[in-house]
């Protein structure tokens, strides 16, 4: 290389960073010391190297003093390496003929003795000077971005992200596990704080998704495999058999009314088990896609045993009145099998949402034991006009005097069930105070019952939320501050007889109270999905100790993950309400758009490569790469690295027993000369 032979002319700059560095490090002394080192052509100290004049200084010096290497001693490379590389490049040098020394975080900020801190800065500077001599010109590689996007999960987050991208003209694959999109929001009657009808705002969006020419909607499907890297993911999706051809089904539902089961008989998941459905069903009237499906577990035309591949065995016992009803459309297909489909996308938005806390885990509240204890989601269905009771709030147990199903006269809503509790989940689920008040309002509206809300703290920090709380106070809802101790049917007074008693220490009144009610609602908190661990591994994301998917930076990269090209939105990242979910979904779509519209990504050239002639093919390195970037070439019997996948972690470099892997910016010469530099300083 010609750069090797050319005389070394290093420019060195030590930055004061205002007082940040200069207060603890004598920058002028450092500059004078470095001036004496071999290869150094010029050495300066300057107040703010990152400022425009600071960068201009570097460019000017490169031109006037024919510098061919630059070292800046200042803050963390995380902050300004990019800045200075840019300046070096603008000055006409390859940006990798640059090295940065951190004398702020590593020195001035952590020391208290000015003399010693100055000595340390000199030693670190010397290391950099020795290292930079071995730097090589490197090239930033560009990798093309596939313009299609995969959105996983069709709750409001996934719907909004998919729509945003599709409206921008991008092709989207939306994969939803359930037979319909909509997520939790589809179950709600109204939404806080505006009390607008959930269906009215959601279902138009759902059908738009269903018919959008740019969206391929795959419901009843799951992602089973993800290969590749940012810009070039290959995704395998399993599409579960519906036993109904989605393209042929018109959603007329004639089959359902003609099913040999005259009455719906089987627990209906969408209605939280409060309603019943037939073996052939549609999850809810506005479901998208408008296509029925068959539950082979209960359909009479399937036998109860399974084929070796796990699919149910088709029998011939049923009259198949559904098929008759479907007639010419021929949409019903008992022989349908799960299929695997593969798509290529450039980016992925994960919107897999949450599950609610299992109320059975708090036995003191009697869920499952007392029939008239409900979860909030159940009540969402009960008060819903299209719910199992048509919006009538009737209790599971008990009759009115006239023998009709009983409507509650008083209702207690317990906040924070499975939230803010060391024994269950530590976090605040953020939406429970608000939806509890929403339900208090709706239940009162539907039944005229006396409402009691038991809360620990009232958390209403959203726009219009405190106002909503005030509205509830005015409505006459009783707010009792205290964590409920238990729900019991053990009556102590005639008034309590036949009712549920909520025992609570009213921390404002300072007394323990017993409040008899007809119905108890548990405001169960939000939890990561049961399969969050697998989903996380599938998409190579991280999660916090609580199990929520981890954003790259809580403030500055809230919808990015540690895997480039994989973004997050909605409750899979943590509990949040619909406004925040939609905002995140929009942000995630925008991040994906940035990638797509740029068309390529630039890769930091700190990648590793295997010396082809020197590699003995021992395979030691292959299983160690956390990004599976290393492959074995069976033809040449040697390992090789897919540079686009390599993140430059260096794991393989250290492990190659014959040192046949070299990493750019971290080759042995560079590292050892840096070590020698720091040790040689005395």
């Amino acid at each position, binding site marked *: 290389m010609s750069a090797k032979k050319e005389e070394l002319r290093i420019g060195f700059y030590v930055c004061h960073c205002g007082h940040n560095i200069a207060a603890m490090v004598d920058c002028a002394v450092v500059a004078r010391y470095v001036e004496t080192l071999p290869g150094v052509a010029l050495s300066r100290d300057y107040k703010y190297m990152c400022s425009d004049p600071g960068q201009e200084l570097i460019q000017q010096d490169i031109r006037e003093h024919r510098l061919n290497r630059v070292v800046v001693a200042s803050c963390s490379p995380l902050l300004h390496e990019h800045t200075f590389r840019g300046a070096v490049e603008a000055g006409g040098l390859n940006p990798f003929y640059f090295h940065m020394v951190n004398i702020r975080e590593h020195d001035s900020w952590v020391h208290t003795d000015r003399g010693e801190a100055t000595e340390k800065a000199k030693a670190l500077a010397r290391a950099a000077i020795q290292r930079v001599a071995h730097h090589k010109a490197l090239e930033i590689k560009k990798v093309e971005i596939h313009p299609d996007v995969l959105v996983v999960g069709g709750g409001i987050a996934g719907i909004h992200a998919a729509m945003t991208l599709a409206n921008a003209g991008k092709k989207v694959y939306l994969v939803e596990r359930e037979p319909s999109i909509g997520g939790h929001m589809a179950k709600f009657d109204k939404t806080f704080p505006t009390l607008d009808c959930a269906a009215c705002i959601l279902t138009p969006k759902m059908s738009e998704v269903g018919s959008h020419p740019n969206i391929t909607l795959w419901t009843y499907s799951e992602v089973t495999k993800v290969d590749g890297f940012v810009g070039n993911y290959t995704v395998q999706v399993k599409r579960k058999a519906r036993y109904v051809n989605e393209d042929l089904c018109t959603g007329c539902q004639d089959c359902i009314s003609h099913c040999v089961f005259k009455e719906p008989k089987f627990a209906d998941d969408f209605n939280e088990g409060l309603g019943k459905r037939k073996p052939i069903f549609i999850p809810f009237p506005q479901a998208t896609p408008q296509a029925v499906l068959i539950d082979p577990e209960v359909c009479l035309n399937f036998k109860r045993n399974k084929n070796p591949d796990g699919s149910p065995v088709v029998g011939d016992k049923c009259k198949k009145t559904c098929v008759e009803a479907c007639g010419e459309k021929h949409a019903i297909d008992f022989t349908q099998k799960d299929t695997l489909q593969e798509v290529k996308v450039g980016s992925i938005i994960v919107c897999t949402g949450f599950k609610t806390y299992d109320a059975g885990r708090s036995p003191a509240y009697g869920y499952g034991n007392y029939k008239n204890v409900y979860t909030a989601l159940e009540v969402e269905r009960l008060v819903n006009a299209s719910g199992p009771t048509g919006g009538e709030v009737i209790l599971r147990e008990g009759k009115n005097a006239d023998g009709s199903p009983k409507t509650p006269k008083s209702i207690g809503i317990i906040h924070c069930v499975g939230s803010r509790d060391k024994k269950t989940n530590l976090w605040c689920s953020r939406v429970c105070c608000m939806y509890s008040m929403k339900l208090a309002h709706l239940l009162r509206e539907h039944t005229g019952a006396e409402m009691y809300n038991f809360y620990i703290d009232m958390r209403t920090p959203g726009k219009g939320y405190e106002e909503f709380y005030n509205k509830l106070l005015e409505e006459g809802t009783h707010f009792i501050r205290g964590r409920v101790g238990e729900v019991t049917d053990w009556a102590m007074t005639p008034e309590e007889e036949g009712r549920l008693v909520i025992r609570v220490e009213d921390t404002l009144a300072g007394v323990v109270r017993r409040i008899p009610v007809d119905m108890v609602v548990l405001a169960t908190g939000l939890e990561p999905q049961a399969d969050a661990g697998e989903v996380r591994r599938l998409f190579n994301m991280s999660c916090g100790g609580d199990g929520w998917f981890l954003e790259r930076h809580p403030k500055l990269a809230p919808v990015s993950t540690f895997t480039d090209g994989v973004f997050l939105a909605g409750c899979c990242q943590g509990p949040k309400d619909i406004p925040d979910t939609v905002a995140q979904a929009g942000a995630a779509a925008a991040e994906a758009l940035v990638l797509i519209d740029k068309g390529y990504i630039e890769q930091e050239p700190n990648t590793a490569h295997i010396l082809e002639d020197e590699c*003995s093919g*021992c395979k*030691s390195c292959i*299983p160690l790469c956390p990004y599976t970037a290393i492959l074995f070439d069976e033809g040449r*019997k040697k390992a090789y690295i897919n540079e686009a996948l390599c993140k430059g972690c260096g*794991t393989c470099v*250290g492990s190659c*027993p*014959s040192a*046949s892997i070299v990493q750019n910016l971290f080759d042995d010469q560079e590292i050892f000369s840096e070590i020698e530099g720091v040790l040689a300083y005395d």
Partner: protein
Amino acid sequence: MPKPKVAFYWCASCGGCEETVVDLAEDILGVVEKVDIVLWPVAMDFKYKDVAAMPDKSIVATLLNGAIRTSEQEELAVLLRRKSQYLIAYGACAQLGGIPALANQFSREQILKFNYEDCPALVNEKKTRPQIHFEEAGRAPHLPEFRNVVRTLDQVVDVDFYIPGCPPTPKLTKAAFDALLGGKLPPKGSVLAPDIALCDECERKATKPTNVAFTEFKRPHQALADPTKCFLAQGMVCMGPATRSGCGAACTSGNMPCTGCFGPTSRVRDQGAKILSSLCANVEAKDEEGIRKTLAGIPDPVGTFYRYGLAKSILRRKVDLAMTGNGH
């Protein structure tokens, strides 16, 4: 034209390297024909003073085997360096320290005490130890001094080339002579063997799985090795991936794992550290207890990973041993 002069010398070594020279068989005659051997203590009688009397650089090449432990070895290394155009470190001990360098785990005093006092097979009631000077029957013999540590040849004098192995193979030796006499020498400092690890020429290479994931380690005497399968795949430490090839995979084709005598490739600074980071990174267990259990199968890590390379490694020696001197 006079034949080029060649010298062979031995220091702290077992004599195996000398065997190799003899093992050149017919080829030795070819060599002898072309050169004039001026020093070869194992085969012929020469006096040091003869060598000292030779003009500087009059020997074309000296092949020196063995590590440097005593003052005499050091003196001869310096002398031969001065007399030779090329000084070649011949064999693992001269190149890397070899087996003798394992003594660098112990102090000089520990070694002398064991050998002259504590050794169970010893009768030495007066605990007599060798002395540098002593007088007996009117004579005053002079013994070499036992240095603090074992050193490689290049830690004592400048070395031109290295021929690796414990011992080097006749094939490499002959190739070295051919290069030397044919004037086709590589750059100074080269190791005269291929610069790729042993796996490259090992017949078992194809049987190594991509994910070897060690669950246990066995030593050769603890299990019957499958004669065709990669040793690492059988849970036996094989130094092959961290060791230069060129031996023709002699050990692995004899159903013994490689012990690393050819030393590392040119790119490696510390052979033991390299194989350690590779093996340990591939241990399947990820918890302390599991790791400890797996590694219990390697009871002597220094003897396993630094069998030939301790003197030349970054570790070099027990930390409190001075590099030079004799401990007094």
